[in-house]
């Protein structure tokens, strides 16, 4: 595989009536540019150019695709179209909107709203480095996810799932709006089972059913990811991966440590969303919204002394086990 990344279009290149200002992002699917439309408005232009299948020399416009990779290239194009189709149907302030779609330079381009701000991921990293007991304030978390859930509800109403919700895909604009971005993984729920473009997943945020082929995914799959995002906003770090949780689930303990810092209700909501069993989660965004927007006095139950001791003991045991394993990896456990 060629490790050379395709070169971005040079600044001031005009494609489809949009003038490129600069490259702002690159991913497996291609490149995103800041561009200016004919009326002087800023837009984001996403160029389909998968780095594993296509190359482009610096200063060139046309990508080169090796003949043996052409059919994969076209297959990837289909999922790029799927993303376009998905977004084209949705108009909501909390969902990135697509403005135009066109073909040029032997590839295709998706024009979207240009958002100024930063990903939630960046905010979490900045906040956790302050090393305070709370990463985010509870009211911030609630209002942020209230907005995101409004958008997600519309997505689900269109019978689509996002399937890659994570802090890096939640964008906070400079005027304080949160927007769901990157629907590259979105597949129409009803579309046929793919044999190549299976949804990829992000460890920690992907629900257990995403790891199993053939398992039925639904709104609850995105809801798991929402729970994991709230968890990350509280802890500053992503939760354990689902397969790890299936072996030994430490989420409840990790959340218990936050008691007294965040309200009981918020902690319960996260546990509910992140249930390993899809049926035990909120089955719809609406059900989750209702719980999350519940007004009233927040209860904070601090850990009791005995609970704290038990927890410390638990950590000690876990660490001892680890070191024992490290010292004697070949010891077989008696059955």
């Amino acid at each position, binding site marked *: 595989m060629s490790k050379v990344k395709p070169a971005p279009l040079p600044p001031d290149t005009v494609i489809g009536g949009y003038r490129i200002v600069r490259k702002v992002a690159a991913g497996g699917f291609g490149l995103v540019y800041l561009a200016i439309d004919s009326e002087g408005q800023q837009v984001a232009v996403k160029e389909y150019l998968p780095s594993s299948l296509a190359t482009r020399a610096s200063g060139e416009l046309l990508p080169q695709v090796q003949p043996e990779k052409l059919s994969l290239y076209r297959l990837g194009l289909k999922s790029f179209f799927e993303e376009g*189709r998905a977004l*084209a149907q949705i108009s909501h302030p909390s969902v990135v909107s697509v403005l135009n779609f066109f073909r040029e330079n032997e590839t295709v381009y998706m024009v979207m709203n240009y958002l100024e701000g930063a990903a939630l991921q960046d905010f979490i990293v900045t906040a956790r480095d302050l090393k305070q007991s709370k990463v985010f304030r509870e009211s911030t978390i609630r209002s942020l996810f209230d907005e995101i859930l409004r958008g997600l509800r519309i997505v689900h109403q269109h019978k689509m799932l996002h399937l890659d919700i994570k802090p890096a895909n939640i964008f906070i604009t400079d005027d304080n709006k949160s927007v769901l971005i990157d629907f590259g993984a979105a597949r129409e729920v009803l579309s046929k089972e793919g044999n190549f473009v299976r949804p990829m997943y992000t460890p920690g945020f992907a629900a257990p059913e995403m790891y199993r082929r053939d398992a039925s995914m639904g709104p609850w799959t995105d809801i798991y990811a929402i729970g994991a995002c709230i968890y990350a906003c509280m802890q500053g770090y992503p939760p354990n991966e689902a397969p790890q949780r299936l072996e030994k689930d430490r989420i409840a303990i990790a959340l218990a440590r936050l008691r007294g810092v965040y309200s009981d209700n918020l902690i319960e909501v996260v546990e509910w969303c992140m249930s390993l069993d899809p049926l035990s989660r909120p089955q719809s965004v609406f059900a989750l919204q209702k719980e999350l927007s519940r007004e009233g006095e927040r209860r904070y139950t601090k850990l009791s002394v005995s609970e704290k001791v038990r927890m410390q003991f638990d950590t000690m045991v876990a660490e001892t086990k680890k070191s024992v394993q490290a010292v004697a990896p070949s010891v077989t456990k008696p059955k």
Partner: protein
Amino acid sequence: MKFSVFQISRKGGREKNEDRMGYCYTKGSGLFLLADGMGGHPEGEVAAQMAMQVIAGLYQSQANPEIEDINAFFTTAILAAHRQILRYAAEKGLTDTPRTTLVAALVQGTSAHWVHCGDSRLYFVRSGELLARTRDHSYLEQRKRLKPDNQAPELTNRNVLYTCLGSPSRPEFEITGPVQLQQGDRILLCSDGLWGSLDDTDIVFHLGQKPVGAAVPDLVERALIKGGPRSDNVTVIAMEWETPDDFASTRESISTDNIDDGVFASTVQAGWVDSSLDDLDDAGIERSIAEINEAIRRTSARRS
């Protein structure tokens, strides 16, 4: 014209899902399609997909914005799809041909018409009552029709069909209509995965209980549960006819009154055939781009 529609296809215990469905509409008419690629012959999913694409393509060229001669349209469409499948089999040098059933409903003005070939069915329900249902082209239903009092029809396998699209003999099909539509009428198209598990009374009852968007997934779930681990694939598309009203409807329904003359919207996509067989060609890319831009226009029109 105003209607709400819901479609869903779920895989049962089978290795693959050879069912296909979709709908398209113009300002003046709507077409609903369902095809069930047949097992026991090669590439059933290709036959089903081809039938959808050929018929949706013909509809797009002939619905301006209405279909002038509906009987002629149905006849041409079915035969064109049939021939396309045979051509495909010949080009690929297949020793046996891919085959599919087909059921299609066309609504236009204030009436409905339908055509079917094979054992995919159409149910026409008004206020919770079954007004009409297609009769399968299976030996079992043929015997029931010829001898209604036959005591042992169950001995005949319900799955054996005497006609379909793609077989060496010319397909037989039945056209029904026009049937006048009333507010709230429901038309359901389904593969045998649904009616094989649920009785007509169940289907009719549950279809009438909730809006199609809730009733259809419900029905499919019931059929899959009843079918158990070896359930057939279940595919259903259903529409509810709504009379255009002055007040905005709260439900998500499609109104064709405000769309422009030349507009054609379709859920029948090129991307459905097995990806290995169906590389996007230039025309496919152009079509996808045009469809997406049309969707963007529709969405922004709804917003303003």
